């Protein structure tokens, strides 16, 4: 279902959607772009490059209460699951890298043991993607990891900016539904529109990006160089801050802790929070043994997980090339540089 939306009607579409959903879009606040709720009357424009925080927060929040527990003395504990029950949400301006990351997150959370918290949030959110006519960041490398500036995977709608208007393509049932809500605002896309979209997409693909030549060789290099002292050198500047992982659209590590609010009767919540393989104590056993007790081992884990293990388990790259980890690393650790080092080391 392909349609055309005149640029000045974008706000109206958001307004129509607000009747039945919370609407989010990239907003420039506190010196950075992030997905924020769009207030009535607010202008909606897309000049955001990419957001700092990825779209994963909509399906995997920093803090998720799994269930409440309460136990009167001498009785069995009462457990009350707290599945998310919020209404629908529509998120505009999601880049294809974040959409593709959603496909990776779906594999983690819905395959094998199905996570009902993730599923509840995934079901209620609609991702309206925006193709990248030019790379949003100097650190983009989606093409190297099997993505593209106009990929639709994981998105419900894909918008492409054309001259004075947006090309809007609904990709899923949810996407069709939110377009249908504002049917009157759209015009049908014609042959000229489709042709312009193709040109724009082709031009987008031809923009230079950071590049990793051959991902299979990277995987080979990672396997062969697991014990290499290179890792300590590559990680020498790393401060274990966790920015790379928390800002990554496909990183999903978490912790589970009990937060007690009362002891008699016992009451509290079992809470899931984001966690981070770059934190020193992430893999620490209760005995004090830590299988990954150096920054080199932890950096190796992150790179291997993204570019090797996930591929071995699921046949797709977990990294979608958004470049946030590179742009926001306080000390310049660069996954593209590391991947290229490992690719070179594959031959050895």
């Amino acid at each position, binding site marked *: 279902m392909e349609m055309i939306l005149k640029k000045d009607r974008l706000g109206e579409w958001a307004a129509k959607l607000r009747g039945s959903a919370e609407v989010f879009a990239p907003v420039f606040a506190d*010196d950075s772009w992030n997905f924020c709720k769009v207030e009535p009357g607010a202008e909606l424009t897309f000049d955001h490059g990419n957001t700092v925080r990825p779209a994963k927060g909509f399906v995997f929040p920093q803090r998720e209460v799994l269930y409440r527990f309460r136990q009167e003395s001498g009785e069995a504990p009462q457990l009350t699951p707290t599945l998310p029950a919020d209404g629908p949400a529509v998120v505009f301006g999601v880049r294809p890298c974040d959409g593709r990351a959603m496909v990776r997150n779906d594999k983690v959370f819905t395959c094998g043991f199905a996570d009902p918290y993730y599923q509840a949030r995934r079901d209620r959110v609609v991702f309206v993607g925006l193709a990248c006519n030019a790379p949003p960041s100097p650190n983009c490398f989606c093409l190297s990891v099997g993505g593209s500036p106009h990929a639709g995977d994981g998105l419900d709608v894909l918008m492409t900016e054309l001259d004075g208007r947006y090309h809007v393509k609904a990709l899923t049932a949810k996407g069709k539904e939110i377009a249908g809500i504002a049917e009157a605002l759209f015009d049908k896309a014609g042959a000229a529109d489709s042709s312009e979209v193709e040109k724009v997409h082709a031009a987008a693909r031809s923009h230079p990006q950071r590049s990793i030549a051959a991902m299979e060789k990277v995987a080979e290099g990672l396997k062969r160089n697991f014990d290499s002292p290179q890792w300590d050198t590559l990680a020498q500047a790393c401060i274990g*801050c966790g920015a790379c992982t928390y800002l990554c659209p496909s990183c999903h590590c978490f912790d589970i*802790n009990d*937060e007690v609010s009362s002891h008699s009767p016992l009451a509290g919540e079992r809470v899931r929070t984001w966690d981070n393989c770059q934190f020193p104590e992430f893999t620490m056993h209760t*005995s004090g043994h830590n299988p990954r007790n150096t920054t080199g081992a932890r950096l190796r884990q992150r790179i291997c997980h993204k570019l090797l293990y996930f591929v071995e388990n699921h046949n797709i790259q977990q990294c979608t090339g958004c470049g946030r980890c*590179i742009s926001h690393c*306080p*000390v310049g650790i660069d996954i*593209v540089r590391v991947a290229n080092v490992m690719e070179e080391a594959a031959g050895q």
Partner: protein
Amino acid sequence: MVAIEDIRARAKELLESGKVRSVLGYRRGTASVLAEPAFVTAPEDTAALVLDATCVENLALYLVNEKKRQKTQRSQDTRPLAVVAKGCDGRAITVLLQENYIKRDEVVILGVSCENGGMIDTHKLSRALRGKAATGAAFDGNGGIKVAFTAGETTVPAAEVLAARCLECTKAYPLVSDYFFGDKIDERSYSPRFTAVSAIAEKSPEERSAFWAGHFERCIRCYACRAVCPMCYCDECVVDSTSFIVNPTTSADEKACRIRWIQRSASPSENAMYHMVRAIHLAGRCTDCGECERVCPVNIPLRLLNTMLEREALEMFEYAPGLDPEQPSLISSFRDGDPNDFIR
């Protein structure tokens, strides 16, 4: 004028003579507009050292990190580390010396003066470019900073993108150093000290409360602010229930009785507690390198918390941190004339 060739030459000499085991400096990176930390061990690699307005990192942090690394590794190389230090970085090193975290002979300080310049602030740069990434930033020699980005370049007045701490800096060079590069310029042309924090401090308690609540709500507890701070060198952090030092002899009782002062999850109350406790633990120790604020992924203006306490330390106790390795620490010393009207 700081001549980078002089720094490179000195670094090379220190390595060639074997006086130091490594030189910590800055070099061009691939990741962003900023320079990245360089750990130079080969004399020829000193050619890559740079010094400009993008050299924002406080390399004193690596004196701490390398010391911790040495404890776990077998290396017996006890030669000192040489480190390039700006004024704020040098004050941080001085605090580490003052607190005996490192000894004077463990570090060779290559002091550099920011003269009348300073360091760019990536958040202000982002503001000037409305979120676009900068690929280059340099003084244009005419009171401005030339900023390059993928679609072109622009020049902005230096005051718009220089870090607030640089605009307010009163001593843009380290007082303690082994080698010094540049001119020791005390008169700087920007704003008075504490300009930024005064603007907030003058607001009403309700406004301030709302200001901070709004910022702390965004905190994702990544602990980047703590990780980048050279003064946060505690192996166990009181506000982090996961940073618990455990070894094979730690008893089950110790682990079982360990108190979780602050919950792991990012909720407004826990976030506020984390930041305020950390700020108080830095009172009299923070030398305003601004790194905490730079590395925050959600742009919380953390520096304001620390400069607030720094202002109080100065006003109440005439204390400024990092000036002299022999000075006592603020929290663990007192003078007879200190205010004590709260003692009844």
